């Protein structure tokens, strides 16, 4: 059923979701860039943020958008704390930090199960079912808002990295921690702040997700994989690469329902499939990832 209405609806949905995917992936990319480790607690962060927003909504009837912003400082601090208490001690050994963050994820998941139970949760707001008419298409308000917020957040991040001293410090440490140290920058502190910011971005994405999806404590895992697929696909050189990767994934997911015999539960496999394809085809985004790790020339 490939008519204009269908295709455009799917395309718009893809773009809107891509914005959110980009936000969550950028947090992961930031942490990787500075510390060369993949934050496996990213999943836990998104999940806890979603539940935090849920609780705020239940307790104070706080709108999820406001809720997502309100929790940001909390997650910033939490991220920095996690880093100083645990990650920093094992940051030099990638596998150890990976396992540590993974353990954190398990603990967080279980804590969520204990506190909130395992049923599907969702937040319903006055505008959950409203739509806006754009060019003859009905677009759900709940999809536009996260997109716009993500856009703003990414813009803020771009400003932070490009125009502030902190941003320059982060970029310096990403490129060469020793040289940064010689320039008077303190890599551990920068890493801590970057980890805090990365956690904050993941939390923001998690909060925004509550507008669109229902969730249980294990929903983080899928998005961990998606974020990773996106940054592998898009490369880490710029947030543009991440944004493109997010767009590709969101588009494939959106249009997948047109495949005959498709089942909704298979949609999460797409990220994994994309990851495998990206690995096999080896586009520029991957080469830099590998080159950094094996320390050898880019082919």
């Amino acid at each position: 059923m490939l008519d204009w209405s269908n295709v455009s609806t799917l395309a718009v949905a893809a773009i809107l979701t891509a914005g959110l995917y980009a936000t969550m992936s950028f947090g992961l990319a930031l942490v990787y860039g500075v510390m060369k480790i993949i934050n496996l607690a990213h999943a836990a962060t998104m999940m806890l943020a979603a539940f935090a927003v849920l609780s705020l909504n239940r307790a104070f009837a706080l709108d999820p958008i406001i809720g997502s912003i309100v929790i940001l400082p909390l997650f910033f601090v939490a991220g920095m704390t996690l880093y100083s208490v645990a990650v920093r001690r094992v940051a030099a050994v990638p596998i150890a930090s990976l396992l540590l963050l993974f353990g954190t994820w398990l603990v967080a998941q279980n804590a969520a199960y204990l506190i909130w139970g395992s049923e599907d949760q969702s937040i319903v707001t006055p505008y959950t079912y409203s739509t806006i008419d754009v060019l003859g298409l009905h677009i759900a308000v709940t999809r536009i808002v996260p997109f716009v917020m993500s856009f703003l957040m990414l813009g803020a991040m771009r400003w932070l990295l490009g125009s502030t001293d902190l941003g320059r410090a982060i970029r310096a440490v990403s490129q060469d921690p020793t040289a940064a140290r010689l320039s008077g920058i303190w890599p551990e502190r920068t890493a801590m702040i970057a980890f805090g910011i990365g956690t904050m971005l993941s939390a923001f994405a998690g909060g925004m997700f509550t507008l669109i999806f229902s969730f249980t404590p294990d929903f983080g895992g899928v998005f961990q994989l998606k974020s990773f697929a996106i940054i592998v696909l898009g490369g880490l050189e710029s947030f543009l690469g991440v944004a493109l990767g997010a767009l590709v994934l969101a588009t494939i997911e959106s249009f997948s329902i047109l495949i005959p015999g498709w089942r909704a539960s298979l949609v999460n496999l797409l990220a994994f499939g994309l990851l495998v394809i990206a690995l096999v085809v080896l586009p520029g985004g991957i080469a830099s990832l590998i080159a950094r790790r094996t320390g050898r020339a880019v082919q």
Partner: protein
Amino acid sequence: MTFGRNPYLTGILVAGVCAMVPILRPDDLTILGVGFLTFIFVTQAVSWNLVGGFAGQVSFGFAAFFGTGAYVTAILWSHAGWDPILTLPFAGLAAMVVALLVGLPCFRLSGPYFSIATIGVGEAARVIAINLDNITGGASGLVLPFNVPEKAWFYRAGLILATITFLVAAWIRRHRFGLALFSLRMDQSAAESLGVPTALFKNLVHVVAAFFVGVSAGLYVVYLSYAHPDQVFGFDLSIGMVLMNVIGGIGTLWGPVLGALIYFPIRQLVLSDPRLVAVNLLVFGALLILIILFEPGGLLGLLARAGIVARSGLRLAQPAEKRPE
């Protein structure tokens, strides 16, 4: 090498001791059942260690191989009427094929990136299994025939499998293949520059490990007479294999064995008590965190620190040698 100079001998001795059990207590079904399951876990842990410990490629996706082996056995047995024992080599073989499909693309990523890619693997396998419901019985599982051998048979079969897996691991460690794996774990590029075909070897050890995991799954499913995607493809299986090795000591020979011996009873305890089931992830996650923070070498690392055994295995505590780029 920890317990003595000759791991083959020690391994066979230990196996010999275990083999006494069904002779001395032939009617104790509990101990035979527990023993069998322990051997299955030991096989899993030792196999995982070949890839995660010897080669240093930490995989979170081994459940995919277990589930594949389980379903190959289940399907050949229940749908095609095969004798379950005959299905076992094929369970192993099927797991090997899946390992190849996973490994060829994923081993292009190094270290931690490989690990993350494998997180998706087990889940992908599980989702696929659930969706192929006309073959696998989908979300309701597959109930299998009940005409199975007695528990003592399973005990002995499990023991033989675990022992063979262990002996293979001991052999690899001694052989230059093991040397190559250790070298590529420490510095893949340097190993390549000395003639080690790293991609080939990573895939090779991956496939070998998958074989034993697949066979163990076949035995497991015959024992239970039941197969369900969440059970045999479950992420908890993958986590378990990682955890057993972290507990015992990744990269050592006896670490996975000890780790399995410790992990298995904890797991059984947690899963059987309704209050504890709710916190099982908490228990395992906390265990993982504490071990990584305080004794990354696991139990054998502790013993090495105490001077009781020689240090070996993957050094999670020491930074990987980082050369300026």
